[in-house]
């Protein structure tokens, strides 16, 4: 059973990192290295989820972060503003995570709430995430 309501704690436990690629405007909040059996699953407007064959969540991916998601949810700009450049991408340093935990929790809740809405509108979540 996919645990969509516990993303924030999964992220803490599995030491997810938040990375932003300015060239693509892509935002990742995920395990540093996604497992090979994982597939991207997109059943929400802005978020794709990394989900393993066992239904475990390994991360979130937003394709157009600043251009779309953050332009509609401006409070999350702080996440990118706190990142530091590492080679060609931006990374949220571990020592800044504590300060943005409410935002991360809010993003995790947003995914959970939007998923519940989608399920209420007829999405068969279990079937969708398990389709390979």
């Amino acid at each position, binding site marked *: 059973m996919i645990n969509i309501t516990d993303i924030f704690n999964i992220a803490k436990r599995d030491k997810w990192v938040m*990375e932003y*690629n300015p*060239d*693509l*405007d*892509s935002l*990742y909040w*995920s395990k*540093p*290295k*996604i*497992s*090979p059996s*994982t*597939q*991207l*699953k*997109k*059943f*929400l*407007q802005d978020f*794709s989820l990394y989900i393993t064959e066992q239904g475990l969540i390994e991360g979130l*991916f937003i*394709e*157009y972060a*600043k*251009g*779309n998601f953050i*332009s509609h949810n401006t409070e999350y700009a702080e996440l990118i503003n706190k990142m530091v450049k590492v*080679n*060609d*991408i931006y990374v949220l340093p571990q020592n800044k995570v504590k300060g943005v935990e409410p935002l991360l929790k809010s993003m995790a809740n947003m995914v959970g709430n939007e998923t519940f809405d989608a399920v209420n509108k007829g*999405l068969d979540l279990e079937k*969708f995430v398990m*389709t390979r």
Partner: protein
Amino acid sequence: MTNTNKDNCFYSDSFKDYRGKPIKLCWSEELWITHLNKHPEIIDPLHTSELISKTVLEPSLVMTGYRPGNAKEMLVCYYKEHKRSESDVYYSKVVIGCSGPDLYVKTVFMGWALYIYVVQEKKYNFKELYRDKKTFL
């Protein structure tokens, strides 16, 4: 993802799209690893090249335009359906940048999505360049 200096290509290749237009790829090792870490389905350069080639040569849908907030670089997004069910599709996406002398591969990945959420570019007034009559995208 950004192309790097040609002298620094860990993974390089060239492709032709459905129009016969040449597309280059030149990723540093660091860029390759960054990409592989987030998109493990690309497996290795051989698989990645096959995936890119299939997607740009026989796409289901091709969109072109500028991503929101960046009017400098024109993009071409190639989508290819691989599997489908009544509500969702397993697809590949290749994003090509057009700002250099050659068209070049910025990113490639695969995933499942509900049909309504696959083509993000529809929201940003990208123009449709090509559509396979059979596609649901």
